[in-house]
């Protein structure tokens, strides 16, 4: 972007117009490359001298410009036009900006308010996947993002289209997933009048997005899109929504895409504090019974290698949350697998006995801690997280480090001397022998755990697994042995039924050559089953492994344990899933006997298109171990002490 730029006047400004003119006049006389940064308010103490650039200083010396910059940050940027600015429509600007952000695909569903954007996409031959529900588009963008680390993009029309995205945005928000959602909106003149298909989507999504925008002027559009992608993908990632009124998409603008954002209120911290890192090293060095508690931040940060180095150097066992099962090899001798409500007994015991917990990118969720006062009662806690608000939120922390995990770990690990923890590891090995993660093989009927184990074996732990929510999800977590990062895509924070299948659509698009399997429940699958049409239409070879138990199994399990088997509203009268799949043009396989599991799975995995495997599993199987709600995590059902 070496082209020289200049300031051009922007229409529709009141107030400091005089200043602006002078400034523009100056800039036009002397076109040159401008650098702009906002001086840190905290440093200068007073507000904002104009962008720091040679032009500005010169102008100030000539008395041509006052203290305060004439325009708001984002408008400010959109003033910066390239020498050959293009006149294009807002809709075209959307498409062009997506292209410049490196977006290669968008998931969505059209409607009146986004017709101009769809038209622009069509003309630009932009790749678009038509899901059959907007929620599915949001989940697909989520799956795309989580399996690649890139930002996923979805689009929906105003009103009902936009509100259909909400569950998807909340799901992405809870799991810190970078998604940009674009919604159409009624024309600016109709805003606030209960116009046809008007919904206040920025208001509705405020608590479930990292940030959101209502674009009122077409000139703001490029900078807002730039900001949206920047905010979604940096720091602690999250979804950002951009609401664009229809008239904004049809108005013309001089298009310039900024290469920087100006966000004085958003400065993620990546570098850990060196003194804290040293102090952490000292604390770690003293520990006799350390446990590394790894969370989704490991995946987000791409710090799996650093985590492995840390664990091996310290000879410290690693337990992961649901969100990080794929962050540490499940078959590594130091792996304790998952902790928490449905974690392994040995992970929960280890955490309870530990004298040091090293929390890396994990947020002490209540599914992990159980009753919080009983969590890791003997341990000092070191927490490394990029989000300062996570530090000490649920559990008091002895040594916090705010920063990007990969960077912090790569500074921390070299400070540590290699260690041995023989006695501790022996204790853990003993727990592993006494309380292994198992299930009772049934003589009759199919154990769902066995199905997952077989899948794990057949795919050598290298498939990308999506899940629905409930027992199916927990069995996937317990019995699939993950070997590679970014291969477990599950809704952890919100626990959104209907997530897995549409997420698998996004995952498969992003990873055309990898096996993608949605481990599903019969209840959840029906929440987005219409996506069978999507996989059929695009020939996406997603495999749905349906653990069909005829129940809302996880809820039924709670009712069995806590409500004396009063199965209120959890018995499902199901369709014939195979016929349903076939009606959509998707291959279907029914599995009714244990001995068919392997062969049918092999057949499905070998098939080049989508397959639904309807596996009739034992209906009343329970997920064990289980920590009852609000109990201590060492008090597990299904574990005889």
């Amino acid at each position, binding site marked *: 972007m070496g082209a020289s730029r200049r300031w051009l006047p922007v229409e529709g400004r009141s107030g400091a117009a005089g200043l602006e003119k002078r400034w523009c006049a100056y800039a036009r006389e002397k076109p040159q490359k401008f650098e702009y940064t906002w001086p840190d*308010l905290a440093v200068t103490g007073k*507000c904002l001298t104009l962008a720091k650039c040679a032009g500005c200083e010169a102008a100030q010396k000539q008395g041509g410009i006052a203290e305060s910059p004439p325009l*708001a940050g984002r408008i400010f940027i959109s003033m910066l036009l390239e020498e050959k600015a293009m006149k294009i429509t807002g809709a075209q600007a959307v498409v062009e900006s997506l292209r410049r952000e490196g977006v290669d695909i968008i998931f969505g569903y059209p409607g009146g308010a986004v017709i101009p954007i769809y038209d622009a996409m069509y003309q630009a031959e932009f790749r678009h996947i038509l899901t059959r529900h907007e929620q599915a588009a949001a989940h697909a963008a989520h799956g795309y993002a989580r399996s690649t680390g890139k930002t996923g993009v979805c689009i929906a029309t105003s009103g009902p289209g936009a509100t259909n995205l909400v569950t998807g945005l909340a799901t992405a928000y809870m799991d810190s997933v970078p998604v940009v959602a674009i919604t159409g909106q009624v024309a600016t003149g109709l805003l606030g009048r209960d116009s046809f298909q008007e919904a206040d989507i920025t*208001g509705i999504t*405020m*608590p479930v997005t990292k940030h959101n925008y*209502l674009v009122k002027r077409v000139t703001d559009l490029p900078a807002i899109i730039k900001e949206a992608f920047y905010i979604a993908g940096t720091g602690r990632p999250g979804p950002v929504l951009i609401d664009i009124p229809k008239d904004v998409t049809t108005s013309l603008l001089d298009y310039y895409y900024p290469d920087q954002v100006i966000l004085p*209120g*958003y400065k993620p911290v990546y570098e850990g504090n060196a003194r804290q890192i040293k102090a952490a090293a000292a604390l770690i060095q003293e520990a006799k019974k350390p446990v590394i508690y790894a969370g989704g931040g490991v995946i987000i940060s791409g710090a799996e290698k650093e985590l492995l180095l840390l664990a091996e150097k310290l000879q410290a066992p690693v337990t992961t949350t649901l969100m990080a099962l794929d962050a540490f090899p499940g078959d590594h001798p130091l792996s304790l697998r998952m902790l928490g409500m449905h974690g392994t007994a040995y992970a929960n015991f280890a955490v309870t006995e530990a004298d040091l917990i090293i929390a890396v990118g994990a947020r002490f969720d209540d599914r992990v801690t159980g009753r919080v006062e009983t969590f890791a009662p003997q341990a000092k806690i070191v927490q490394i997280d990029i989000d*300062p608000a996570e530090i000490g939120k649920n559990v008091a922390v002895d040594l916090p480090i705010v920063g990007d995990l990969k960077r912090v770990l790569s500074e921390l690990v070299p400070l540590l001397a290699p260690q041995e923890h023989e006695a501790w590891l022996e204790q853990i090995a003993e727990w592993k022998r006494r309380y292994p993660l198992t299930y009772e093989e049934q003589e009759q009927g199919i154990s769902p755990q066995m199905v997952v184990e077989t899948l794990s074996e057949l795919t050598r732990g290298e498939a990308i697994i999506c899940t629905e929510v409930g027992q199916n999800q927990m069995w996937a977590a317990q019995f699939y042995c993950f070997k590679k990062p970014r291969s477990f895509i599950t809704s952890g924070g919100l626990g959104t039924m209907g997530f897995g299948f549409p997420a698998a659509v996004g995952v498969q698009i992003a990873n055309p050559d990898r096996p993608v399997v949605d481990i599903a429940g019969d209840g959840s699958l029906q929440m987005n089953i219409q996506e069978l049409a999507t996989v059929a239409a695009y020939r996406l070879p997603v495999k749905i492994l349906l653990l069909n138990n005829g129940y809302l199994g996880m809820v039924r399990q709670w009712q069995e344990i806590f409500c004396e088997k009063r199965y209120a509203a959890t018995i499902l009268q199901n369709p014939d899933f195979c016929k349903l799949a076939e009606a959509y043009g998707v291959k279907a396989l029914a599995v009714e006997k244990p001995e068919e599991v392997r062969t049918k799975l092999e057949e499905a995995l070998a098939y080049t298109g989508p397959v639904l495997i309807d596996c009739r599993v034992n209906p009343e199987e329970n997920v064990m171990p289980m920590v009852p709600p609000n109990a201590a995590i060492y008090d597990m059902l299904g574990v005889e002490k």
Partner: protein
Amino acid sequence: MKHTLAILVMNNPGVMARIAGLYSRRGYNISSIAVGETEDPRISRITLVVEAEDETELEQIAKQLYKLIDVIKLSDITKDKAVERELALIKVHCHPANRSEILQIVDIFRAKIVDVSQEGVIIEVTGDTDKIQAILDLLRPFGLREIARTGKVALVRSAAGR
């Protein structure tokens, strides 16, 4: 305990909704909130008085606020040397018999009568929260008809010699 937070925010649409939403969603207690543009029209200053049970809660409140993209700067000025002011408009019943007494109170508090009518007067008073409370207490026996208060605004004093 009550804390006074001084917050600089981008003057973007929806910024107040973001802050208010955060409070209701996370169950924090706002005692008062005052907002106004700064010398730079793109930036507003919010003075927020919040109730926090302990340091941990206050820390969470501050961090969650700071997490909002539109929040540029935030400081807890409870313990700083700050000038704190609130403004109240107080409508009091007033008749010839007690008028002079009311005027005396107004005088003592360096308040102002800004409207007079048959039934009463409107008094304008500025000061810190205690002062406002004190004048309200003194006026109450005359019959307070209506009160409008702004909520506290505050600025930290410049350090000597700076």
